[in-house]
């Protein structure tokens, strides 16, 4: 009698978990306000023996180009720059909603490019309602 109850409880837990995961992973298109943008700062690390600094920016640019297609946003021209050695910042327009922010963070942190590890340090969407009107760098 205990074993079927245990299986039933396990099935219920799995069912609830799948439903929660489905709710979390559901992508919903949200209207982004006019003039909004998203600032991103990432730290890139290249696992390569010979001259990693030379390819780090290029590999990071390639990864950003891939991931911005995923969230359907453009990198603002000339906004990609190296803040520190191994740390890069860029701006995306239009601004990303909360679902796209999660997708972009996952795409950048994912092991998508061999020998490249990217850690997202800052990812924030700024709208005109926030009272910030930063010029594109």
């Amino acid at each position, binding site marked *: 009698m205990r074993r079927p109850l245990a299986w039933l409880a396990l099935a219920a837990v799995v069912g609830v978990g799948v439903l929660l*995961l489905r709710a*979390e*992973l559901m992508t919903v298109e949200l209207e982004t306000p006019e003039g909004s943008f998203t600032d991103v700062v990432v730290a890139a690390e290249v696992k390569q023996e010979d001259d990693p600094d030379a390819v780090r920016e290029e590999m990071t640019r390639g990864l950003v180009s891939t991931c911005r297609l995923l969230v359907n946003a453009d990198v603002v021209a000339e906004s990609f720059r190296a803040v520190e050695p191994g740390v890069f910042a860029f701006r995306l327009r239009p601004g990303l909603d909360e679902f796209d922010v*999660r997708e972009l*963070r*996952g795409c950048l*942190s*994912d*092991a*998508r490019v061999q020998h490249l590890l990217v850690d997202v340090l800052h990812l924030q969407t700024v709208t005109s309602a926030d009272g910030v009107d930063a010029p594109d760098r």
Partner: protein
Amino acid sequence: MKKLSWLLAVVTLLASGGYVLVYVYRWEWHRAQLVGILFLALLVGLSAALVLRRLGQLEGTRRQPAGRVPEPLQRLRAAPVESPPFRWLRPEDLDRTHIFIPVLLGGGVLVSGIAWLVERLAGASARAGVEEELAASLRDIAFPGEPLVPSRAEALAAPATTSDPAVRLLLGPPAAGGPR
């Protein structure tokens, strides 16, 4: 060592399964795929190891060492343990459902005995009444006490002694007094 290997495999299996969910939640699909492959490989490996271990146990129990007589103590330990009889009559089991079946069987035997007794009594009482009734019915059609056909001497002495026309018809012309 073997237990440690099993423990390590199970922990790795659980961790990889959990990380699949974590990476999917974080939208890191490549990592999720890699950990998912590890999870599947561990699952297949553990399942195969479980099956092989079970097969090994079965083979070990089946195979007896050739030419070696087991010790009496080993025989005793290998003998199946006698199960307690009438387990269903234990006090702690009286409220369980399996007490129902013996009670049902016992009740069936009891009811069959009562039915057999009733049938025997009914048969005995009915047989006496039926026989008496049959005897009364047969008495009406019983043969008369005197013979139906007169003896030769009676026929010669008195050709038509009987007055019953049916008897006279049965006796034929001599009895009826007709010409021979």
